[in-house]
Each structure stands twice: as structure tokens, then as C-alpha cells.
């Protein structure tokens, strides 16, 4: 596609969409959102880029191959489960700890968050694999 309007819009939309996707990922545990939705939004950002320019350009901006995103996502999800196993509890047991950040307050960090990050990367990678493969196949 060769639309100047779309290209100009993408420049502003890309960072917003990516920020929004991370926002969705992080708030997911307490409010609407989560890794799946976040991953889709992030992929949508790059799909848009790929529409406005082409897959080659989108790949250049992404830097990482989508397959790497899929693999690392799956790996992170499995590792988050293994942490429970190493702590002597069943696979995928959610473990939580607290980190105090001055000025912000107490932050809860747990293995389910890690798991959700894995889902995010995986969904991101899968969607982009499909988008890029279809676009380049044309």
C-alpha cells in the first residue's frame, strides 16, 4: 500500500500502540488486559507498519525474527513454571515476592507475571509470523 496518510499516522500510532500493549500486559492481573491481549496489540502495531510500508521494513524495525519471539516466549513460560518446581512445589505454582520501590510503594512480583510475559511474546511472535509470511508471499 502506498498511502501517505497511513504512513504518517503509523509514525504516531506505533509507539502509542506498543506502550498500550505493555500497559495491557502489566495491568492484566488486576484489571482487564493480559499477555494475550497485549501481544495482539503489539502485533497489530507491526501489522500496521507492514501495511503502510512492507514486511521488510517492519522486520527491520522489529530487529528480532518473530520465530525468536515465539521460542523465547515459550521458554519464559516454561521457566516460570520450573521456578515453582525448583522451590519444591508442583510445576507452575505461582510464587510471589514484594519489592519496595521508594516513591512508588510496594510492588508485587510473581511467577505468573513472568508467565504472562511469555504469553505476550509468544502471541506477538505468532501473529507477526503469519502477517509477514502472508505479506512476503504476495
Amino acid at each position, binding site marked *: 500500500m502506498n498511502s501517505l496518510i497511513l504512513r504518517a499516522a503509523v509514525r504516531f500510532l506505533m509507539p502509542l500502540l506498543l506502550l498500550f500493549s505493555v500497559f495491557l500486559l502489566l495491568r*492484566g*492481573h*488486576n*484489571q*482487564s*488486559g*493480559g*499477555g*494475550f*491481549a497485549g501481544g*495482539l*496489540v503489539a*502485533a*497489530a502495531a507491526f*501489522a*500496521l507498519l507492514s*501495511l503502510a510500508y512492507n514486511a521488510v521494513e517492519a522486520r527491520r524495525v522489529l530487529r528480532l525474527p518473530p*520465530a525468536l519471539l*515465539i*521460542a523465547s*516466549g*515459550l521458554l519464559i*513460560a*516454561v521457566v516460570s*513454571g520450573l521456578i515453582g518446581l525448583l522451590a519444591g512445589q508442583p*510445576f*507452575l505454582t*505461582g510464587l*510471589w515476592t514484594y519489592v519496595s520501590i521508594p516513591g512508588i510503594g510496594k510492588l*508485587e512480583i*510473581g511467577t*505468573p*507475571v513472568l*508467565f*504472562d510475559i*511469555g*504469553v505476550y511474546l*509468544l*502471541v506477538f*511472535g*505468532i*501473529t507477526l*509470523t*503469519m*502477517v509477514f*509470511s*502472508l*505479506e*512476503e*508471499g*504476495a
Partner: protein
Amino acid sequence: MIYTILIGFIGAFAAPFFHRVAKRRAGLLLSLLPLGLFAFFASYIPNLASNAVLESSLAWVPDLGVSLTFRLDGLSMLFALLITGIGALVVMYASGYMAGHEHEGRFYLLLLAFLSSMLGLVLADNLLTLFLFWELTSITSYLLIGFETQKAEARSAALQAFLVTGGGGLALLGGLILLGVAGGSYQISDLVNAGSSLAEHAFFIPALLLILLGAFTKSAQFPFHFWLPNAMAAPTPVSAYLHSATMVKAGVYLLARMYPVFHESAWWQMTVTGVGLVTMLAGALLALNSSDLKRILAYSTISALGTMTMLFGIGSKEAAKAGIVFLLAHALYKGALFMVAGAVDHETGTRDVDRLGGLRAKMPLLAAFAGLAALSLAGLGPLLSFIGKELLFEAALAIQGVWHILIPAAVFSSAVSVALALILVLRPFFGSLKPTPLAPHDPPVSLWLGPAVLGMLGLALGLFPKPASTYLAQPALRAVLNAPVEVKLYLWHGLNLALGLSVLAILLGVLLYFAWNSWRKLAGRIQIIQRWGPDAAYDGSIAVLNWAAGLQTRLLQNGYLRFYLLITILVVVALAGSLLLQGGLHWPAQVTEVFFYEAALSVLIVVAALAAVRSRSRLGAIAAMGVVGYGIALIFLQFGAPDLAMTQFLIESITVVLFVFAFYHLPRFDPLGPPGPRWAHALVAVMAGALMTGLVLSAVRVDLFPSISKYFLENSVSLAHGRNIVNVILVDFRGIDTLGEITVLAVAAAGVFAILKYRRKEQS
């Protein structure tokens, strides 16, 4: 003991990297690994001689009775020493034979992985652990036979060996499970002491026959013998190691291991002795028809495996003793002969005995060790194999009744061995020098060291049989018979009938050697074996299998997406619909008040769906489908599921984008097909819609289990530290489901990627 296997596997996987660093010295250094393991096992020999066994155990799947239990008794020891000892020699041999091969590192990996699998197989005390390692040896054998991946012949031979031994492996698994159920334990050490209660169990005979099927395929017994000669497509170190000294003996090992459990059964005696006898004769006859060094050795190995099987089938103490000694002697000389054949091939470029001659002058050392190994094959002189052969004759002479046919059969197979020994030494090494593809020169030390060590060992154990009997044969026989025994081996048995049979066999063998050329001419005319033999049966069944698979694929996977959808929907409608109708359909008793905007939303969805069906352009249809999806998302939102709604919105948007990209690939949009199919499709669509409606209606009514939503609501914050229950369920309560789902997604992505890449390649 678990660590010996573990070390083996670690060494195997480190081997390619090690080879990259150590280059040409890698093989020599890697052979220290099996050598070290050999020393480890050898250090336990005194313990075993004084009746102690070594055991170690690790729970694996306790609920299923599967544990990694290993047990080192006399029989395991004999095999462990053979596996590690010959393994060390073969790795060393490979460093000369495979030198400069582009995948030399990979070769060491596979060889050592096989070594570790085989160790696990002979050390396992748990039936299922044994099966695991059994299959691992089949897999590594497959990879090693097909090592020269660019050769079609090697690939098909690998597949054949894998299908035959793998099929037998399936039978074995069934047999082992039946045996475990019948005996109430999966521990072999429990089963051998189970006594008569096991023999009277209804599963006893089926288990026996299935286990035998596994053992026979692995040890290349008739009629499954055909894979072994074809497996000679493997590099020679593999043939020497897997296909003569160790892996093919796994079946014999299993027979010996199961001997205390089964040997009193008439089925066992009949089947094992009979199959062994036929194999022994068939192998001997087929060996005489070949002129390729490795094929001669392969058929001779089949014959020897038949002899061992036969000896373990007879069921007498003497026969079992003969089996053990024969096994040890055979592993030594056959491994040596294969290495000699490989060295000849490596230095001259051919393995055809008709094209070789006079090599004695060019490679004197190799010729000497070949002569030593061949003497052993013939069972002559002060060698261990001579003792083995005498014991074979004595065991054959000792049995009564119809099995007297064993005596002439044993004499015949020994005579053939003598003839083969003459062929293997006289043809290539004596006579006049013949032109060969490569100018023959003396092989390097790595290629003759193996035959030298093995040949000397056979000689030493023959001259001094006492250590062999006290430290190897006696503990092994004790394990086989599961009873205390004393074994004394002598080189000189006195002037008796067995010695007379030996002399007879030698005379016959010399006669056979001189008649060999005319024999082959005669056999060459009889092509019936090639045309109707088991090998042809294998080819036939593979062809039928491929034909059936092709037919089924063309029928079901015809490439029309609408056909797949049609089948899927019809099956679901038929299965779920019939169940639904059985339960009866009821309108819910009370319906909540329908608000105006709910009704409007429903109308919107219906209109959009109709528009999608009637649309004359693809883009219009997709847009209409998008409206349907957004409408459904709005309904989710309406009923308090914001997460679901958000995901639905995102999915709809992404789908539209994907469709836009996919446009380029799709054929011309054809909205108005012939009316017949269109009406049929409409009918299917309506049926699917009716089914879903019925399902929703009955789902509202049925309340089989108390809802667990309450549990999630109450524990979401306290247990999972989250207030968004949907997300908490996804990543915590039902985390393992999600893990499974994302794994499926990853695999699906790989599929999409592969299909689209393949298409592009095809087009360009």
C-alpha cells in the same frame, strides 16, 4: 551404575564439539570413555565371582511401577564388558576408518549414544526401563545405518531395519506389559523368582509369544533376518559393533534374561529352538551365496545368532552354558572379521572376494590377524570358539527325541563356518594380486589394532579357559539359570563323539570350500528365494501401505478447504446433535426481560451475517463478518465479560488485516456458484446454527456440577494476588492449560510459516 549410562550420553553429545577442538586425535581420545567404563565394570568382576550383585534404583513414574532400576549380575556384566570393550576398539577403529569424513563428529555422537543405550538395556532391571533402552538402540541403529544420508540404498536399509525392529519392539512392549501384569511386578529380579503362579496365568503364553517376537526381530531370526544383510550399507565400524557384536545380540540377551521365567514352557522350547535352528541353517546357506565380504559376514552372523537362540531354547543347563560361551567367542571373532573386511575395503576400494587376491604381501599384519579371527570362526585350534563349538555339539548330543536333527544341523552350520573362514582368508589374502579400484597399501594402526586385540583375546581365553569360566561364564550362567552352578571350561575334552563331529565338520567345510564356485553357479539359477523371500514380502507390504496411505490422503486431504469444513461441521452436528436430541429440547422456564439495545444488537448480527452470505465482493463479505464479530464482542461486554470482549475485538481486527494480506493468494471470488451446492451448504450452515442454539439452551438448563466460579472469586486475591479473575485463571489456576495452548499456537505458527514458504518456493 546410572552414572555410567549418564556419562555415556553426556560424552556422546559432547563428542561433536570435542571433535571440532581435538580434530584428528578426537577418536583416539574419545575411545578412552568406553575404556574407562570398561575398567569400571571390570573392577566389579571379583564381587560378582563371589555372588554379589550391584543394584541401584531411582523412582521415575512410581504410580505406573516404572523405576530406573539397574542391576549388575553376571549376564549384564558379560554384555557390559563386551559393549564397552568392543566399543572402545570400534571408536578407535572409526578414528581411522572415518578420518576426514565431513560428519565424523556426528558419527562419534551416534556411536557413543548407541553404546550408552545398549548399556542401559543390559543393566535395566525394570521391564519398562529395558524397553526404553531397547527402543533407543533401534533409533541409534537407524541413524547409524542411514549415516550416509545421500545414498538411497542406505536410507531404505535404515528404514527397513527400523520398521522391522520397531514393529518387534511394539510386540515386545505388549508382551512386557502382559508379563508385568501377570507377575504383579515390573522388576525382572522379582519375576524370575515368581515361580509356577506366573506360568499358570492366562497372560503367560501371549506374553511369551510377544516377547519372542521382539527378540526375534532384533536378533534377525528367520523370517525377520533380511534386514541385517541390508544394514551392511552402514559404515563398517557400525557393522562390526552394532550388527555383529552387540545390538543384534540384544534379542539373545532378552532370551537369556527371560530364560528363568519361560524356559520350562513347551511353547518356549518349541518356538525358540525351532526358529533358532531354521535361522542357523538359512543363514549358513545364504552366506554361501554371497561374494561381498560384509554380506558373507552378515549371513554368517545370522547363522550364529540362530545357533545362540537355539541353545537358549533347548532348556538344558549344558545348552545354556554352550550359549554363553558361544556368544562371547562370537562377539570377539565376528567383530574382528568385520573390522578386517572394513580395512580391506578402505585400502582397496572393494569388498568383493572375487576381485580381491594376494593382499598378504601388501598388508601382512592385517592378513595375520584376519587368519587368527578366521581360525576362530572355523572353531579350530586353541581358541575360545573351539570350546564353544565342542559345547554346542555336546549339548546337541545330549538331547533326546525329535530334536536329534540338531546334530546334523549343527555339523552342517559348523562346516559352512569352516568354508567361510577359508573363503574369507584365502580369497583376499592369498593367490595372485588382483587389480583393485585403489592401489592396496598397509592399513594404519587404528585399522588393525581392533582385530589384533580381539583375536589375541580369543586365543588367550582359549589357552587359559579358567579365568573365562570363573569370572565370566560362571556368573553369567548363574544369572541365566537363576541357580548356583559351577562352570569349568577345558580346551581338551578327550577323544569323544563331539570331537569326532568337529573333525567331520572340518572335512565337510574344506569340501564345501572347493565346491564353492560350482555351488554359487547352481544357487544363482534358483532365483525363487529372491523373488518370494521375506525381503520381497517386506517390499510388497511397504508398497501396499504407501498405496493405502496415498488413497486415504487423496480422499480426505483433497485440498479443498470447504470440504474440510463440511466434514468437520457434519461430524460435530451428527455426534453432538444426536446426543442433544436424546436428552430432549426444552425452552427455558423463565427468560429475563429483553432490553431494546440487546434486541438491536441481535438484529445487527443477523443482518451482518446475511450480508456476508449474499455479498458479491470478498472485501464486503469480510467486512460483514467483522461486524458479526464486533457484535458478539458487544454482547460479551453487555454480560460483564470485558476481557473476553477486548480479546474478541482485537482478534477481529487482526483477522481483517490478515485477510487483506491473504487476498493476494486467493483465487477469484465466485459468489454465485451452482444453486445445488449452495443450497446444500446453506442446509449445513443452518444445521450448525441450530446445533449451537440447542447447545446453549441445554447448557443453561443443565447444572451437573456445582460451579467453581465462587472458588475463583474467593481465592483470586488471596492465593493468586490478582483481582482480574479471567487473567488469574489463565496464568495461575489453569496455567498448565494455557501452557498447552500456547505450545499448540507455536506449532501452528511453524506450520503456517512452512506452508507459505513452501508455496513461494514452488511458485518461483
